[in-house]
């Protein structure tokens, strides 16, 4: 068997899955997006750009998603970094495994159930009642964009913690000592050595969280009380409520395109950042 044949054979399972679960469905969505809604719902094949012309009608959904997704990603990063740093650098090795498992444990329960827990925590008899007890009245948490943000950060935190943890874990501790020996105070060592070296972890974590947030629909529906409308919610309504598959497909295609552009720009920026750092290293 030639190497070529063997390579193809080894690629076959992944390739088949890729074709069946990604290429084919995406093609169907693309074809649907040029169709029209059948009178009783569904889709009739056609070639019209009408669905794309209607996209501005979902502008608010796109705007909400494109606002909350970066904010959510940033918030998750700010909370996850110190935690990952602690786990990778400071934590007692004996406890490390247990602490890591504790980060994963919530993943063993469905996000739906965990979001329900937040409904009670943020509802009138949860945190607001506690705040009232200590004298802060009239705080409304549930069904606000803030509640959605809390849910998002909570739900996706482990996805941010782990990549950063891995990059910090592999960090060569001798570099930190060298920095210290050369007279850098800890904050400077952190900013000039630790942080730049953990950029790959940050980049991966942000990308994972951001992509998932762009498609999110469950958390805004549950913690936003249906008042915070994401593209994901628009899609659920279009497919399962008004059954406008053609328009739903166009919205889905638009979302995919926006994600592709965002991710491409993001990768370019990262590469450039990486390249400039290499230059510095050579100097």
């Amino acid at each position, binding site marked *: 068997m030639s190497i070529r044949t063997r390579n193809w054979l080894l690629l076959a399972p992944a390739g088949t899955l890729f074709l069946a679960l990604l290429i084919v469905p995406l093609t169907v969505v693309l074809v649907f997006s040029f169709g029209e*809604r059948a*009178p*009783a*719902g*569904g889709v009739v094949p056609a070639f019209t750009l009408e669905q794309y012309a209607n996209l501005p*009608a*979902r502008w*608010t*959904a796109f705007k*909400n998603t494109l606002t909350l997704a970066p904010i959510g990603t940033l918030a998750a990063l700010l909370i996850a970094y110190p935690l990952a740093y602690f786990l990778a650098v400071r934590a007692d090795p004996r406890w490390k495994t247990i602490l890591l498992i504790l980060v994963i444990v919530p993943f063993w329960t469905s996000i*739906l159930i965990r979001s329900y827990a937040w*409904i009670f925590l943020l*509802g*009138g*008899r949860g945190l607001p009642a506690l705040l009232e007890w200590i004298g802060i009245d009239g705080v*409304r948490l*549930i*069904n606000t964009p803030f509640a959605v943000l809390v849910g998002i950060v909570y739900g996706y935190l482990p996805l941010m913690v782990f990549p950063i943890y891995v990059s910090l874990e592999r960090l060569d501790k001798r570099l930190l000592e060298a920095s210290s020996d050369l007279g850098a105070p800890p904050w400077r060592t952190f900013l000039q050595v630790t942080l730049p070296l953990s950029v790959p972890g940050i980049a991966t974590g942000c990308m994972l969280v951001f992509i998932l947030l762009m498609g999110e*629909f*469950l958390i805004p*529906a*549950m913690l936003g*009380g*249906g*008042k915070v*409308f994401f593209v994901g*919610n*628009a899609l*659920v*309504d*279009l*497919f*399962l*409520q*008004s*059954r*406008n598959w053609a328009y739903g497909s166009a919205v889905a295609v638009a979302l995919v395109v926006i994600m592709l552009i965002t991710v491409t720009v993001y990768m370019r920026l990262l590469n450039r950042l990486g390249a400039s750092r290499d230059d510095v290293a050579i100097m």
Partner: protein
Amino acid sequence: MTKVTDHISKQKFMEELNRFRKGSITRRHFLNVTGLGAATAVMGAAIPGLLTRPAFAAGDIGDRVILATWPNYHDPANFEAFTEATGAHVQMNVFGSNEEMLAKLQAGGTGWDVFVPTNYTITTYVGEDLIEPLDTSMLPNYDPAAYDPRFSDAGSVDGKLYAVPKDWGTTGYVVNNNHTGGKKLTSWKEFWDMTMDSFSGRTMVHDYQLTTIGNALKYFGYSFNSIDEKELADAEKLLIDAKPHLFAISSDYQPSIRNGDAWMSMAWTGDGKQLNADMPEIEYVLGVEGGEIWSDYYAVPKGAPHRDAAYALINFLLDPQVNAREVLAHGYPTADAHTNKLLPESLLNDPILYPAKELLTALEFGAAVTLTDPNRAELMARFKSA
């Protein structure tokens, strides 16, 4: 075991109602939100197939029947009795909206044998050729004369019977009288005005265009079913003005009403009944302007894989004894006179289940076009994203 009760005492009724309430965690909204509509409760399927099957009086109808229905809408004991009597296990798929059921049937390959559509969807199912005309010879328990035609009419399309009535109900609203300052609410006008005034941040509307837009139309005295552009524009303005004052847009209103976060919400009969039974300060109101009345049916999709079992299940559920237990479990009225004879007087006189005649006559049945009108769907999307 099949327990046949001729008459159900008040105490038993309260027990049944309590049981229903305890099981009320799964809700329409929960399913809507997951988008899955597939909180599938499998009732001991598979295993009986491995065992030697005993002979059943009704003949062999197979080992299972798949039912697509709504949350908290049946008495599980009835299903156990059905299995006991026929050998077929009831496998239940629970749904969040009529649209979702329609979407699934349109996509095909559901595997359902029996499902529970609401009155205004049936002509659409017939038009799309998705359900089969019922063979009444296989439904000996179905007595058309026993039904109030108001609640059984929609089951027939062009003189052919496609669906038999399950139960009916109304769409009104619940209000917590502890917060109204002694004022008694009676109209949709008050519902919306209060929302934008003293109830700001305390009102919920359904995540369902049919009822939310319909009840906004009632503010102006328009038809619940209107698809008139100008009238819809008025309703849209009202909805957008009211939105900042809403606590939530969600069909899962019971928890928020119960814990006091929300003081008022659009509601269906059964939820109104349950809330009022636990918290007497919660009142179920039907707007004097009118609103929605609806009726749910049993139907058989085309190509049902266990057709015999489907008919056997519908026939079983139409048995007045069985149906009476169903009513006690789900808390919605039935239009079947035979079943009503078996129900306690207190239930038949309950003003939530059986509203006063003048309130009832003002109500409208939803129309097929109300559900499928693209302008109403877009209006709802604009309201939700505003």
